[in-house]
């Protein structure tokens, strides 16, 4: 009737991907302090992303964006009971080691921070902590999964409040998956080459019709309708960065996006929670941007 700790093991792909599975249908919110983390948890967020500045402020301030101060991450861990994620720079495995030492629940190897390595992403298999990575297309998603990512988020264009890039990336990934689904076995070699993705993962997607890890959506989601849109396009959960705490009424916006994410197929619910919300974040038209964060990473 009993088992023991000796036969147990941690850090497996199953427990790493399993946490991503548990977050499905939920909202992961960017927070910069314990007060915001509390608001997020109160509103029904499934996790928070602890960072020093939300993407729209990173965009405004310029300079090098790095991993957050451990003290700030620890304060947020002490404040909420839900999982706490934090960002490391692309390729900066030492930042990721620090985040693992801090016992964060997920590391986001993120293009929102300034990349530390322009050739290599982090070897994520070397870690016990699971990683989420951004992707703009299927090849990029499968390369990250090949490196050990256990959750993919479509990148969108962080800090803009504009959902257009998120939609582009989700549609691209879905279209490329459909192409694999309809391919003949003998075509998969050339498709893998075109996608610049590992053949075994290409085969797996061709057989199953979905990524081997959960596909979430990030970058530019700033209204309940945006959340409903990307979920209907096949995202399994949403990351909301600047969209909540840069809106007129963050508490209401947080609640509304959580409701809209659960009831994304029920337009009556999305309409109800969208009513009288005040202004969403002002946002940017992406054609006017000087820095396209989505182009970081490869």
């Amino acid at each position, binding site marked *: 009737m009993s088992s023991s700790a000796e036969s*147990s093991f941690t850090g497996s792909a199953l427990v790493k991907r*399993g946490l991503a599975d548990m977050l499905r249908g939920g909202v992961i919110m960017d927070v910069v302090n314990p007060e915001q983390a509390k608001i997020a948890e109160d509103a029904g967020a499934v996790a928070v992303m602890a960072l020093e500045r939300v993407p729209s402020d990173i965009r405004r301030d310029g300079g090098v964006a790095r991993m957050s101060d451990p003290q700030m991450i620890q304060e947020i861990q002490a404040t909420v009971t839900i999982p706490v994620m934090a960002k490391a720079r692309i390729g900066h495995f030492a930042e990721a080691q620090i985040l693992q030492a801090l*016992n964060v629940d997920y590391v986001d190897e993120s293009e929102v921070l300034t990349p530390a390595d322009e050739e290599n992403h982090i070897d994520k298999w070397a870690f016990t902590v699971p990683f989420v990575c951004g992707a703009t297309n299927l090849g990029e998603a499968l390369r990250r999964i090949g490196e050990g990512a256990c959750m993919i988020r479509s990148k969108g264009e962080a800090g803009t409040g504009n959902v257009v890039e998120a939609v582009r990336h989700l549609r691209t990934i879905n279209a490329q998956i459909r192409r694999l689904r309809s391919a003949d076995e003998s075509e998969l070699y050339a498709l893998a080459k075109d996608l610049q993705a590992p053949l075994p993962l290409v085969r797996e997607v061709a057989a199953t019709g979905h990524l081997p890890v959960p596909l979430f959506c990030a970058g530019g989601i700033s209204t309940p309708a945006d959340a409903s849109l990307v979920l209907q396009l096949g995202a399994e959960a949403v990351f909301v960065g600047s969209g909540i705490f840069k809106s007129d009424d963050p508490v209401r916006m947080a609640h509304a996006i959580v409701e809209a994410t659960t009831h994304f197929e029920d337009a009556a619910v999305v309409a109800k929670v969208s009513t009288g919300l005040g202004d969403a974040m002002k946002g940017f038209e992406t054609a006017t941007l000087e820095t396209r964060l989505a182009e970081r990473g490869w």
Partner: protein
Amino acid sequence: MPRVGVLALQGDVREHERALNSLSVDVTRVRTREQLDEVDALVMPGGESTAIAHLLVTSELRAALVDRLSKGMPVLGTCAGLILLSREVLDGRVDQWSFETLDVSVRRNGYGRQLASFETTLRVREVGDVHGVFIRAPKIEKVGDVVEILASHDHGDGEHAVLVRQGNVWGCAFHPELTDDTRVHRLFVETI
């Protein structure tokens, strides 16, 4: 054929559906009171218990579920679902509520944060060896006299129950839905 609902507010709904679909039951998602009215039994999936509890209230499902549970509807809660069914929740939010239909005390994230999430082999009564996947799992710290323990695990700090049953109410600290083994679901379904 019994109709089994999967509470689909948030969490690993799809995995439970897959497991149930391989058994002889009719599977449906529950997000509204009307959908709850139509099911004979309910599975409460893994996910974040605070988020699901919040959504139970905003979706006006809490009172309806209290009613169904009081009338003896069979229910299986895994991980977050177990927390929601428990009589007492330790280390939760100060305002954390639960249905209090299962006489156990659970400690949220009792085995630790994600780095401590683990896999192990469990011996389940009437079933045999089962692969147990524990993710930021709740720890069952106290079990009432009326609660039957079907499996337990010693994580280096003594034996703790990991699969329990009190009449029609089943609680599971691990995630049978994350493996291809459907025997725990079958045990539950056979009692409907």
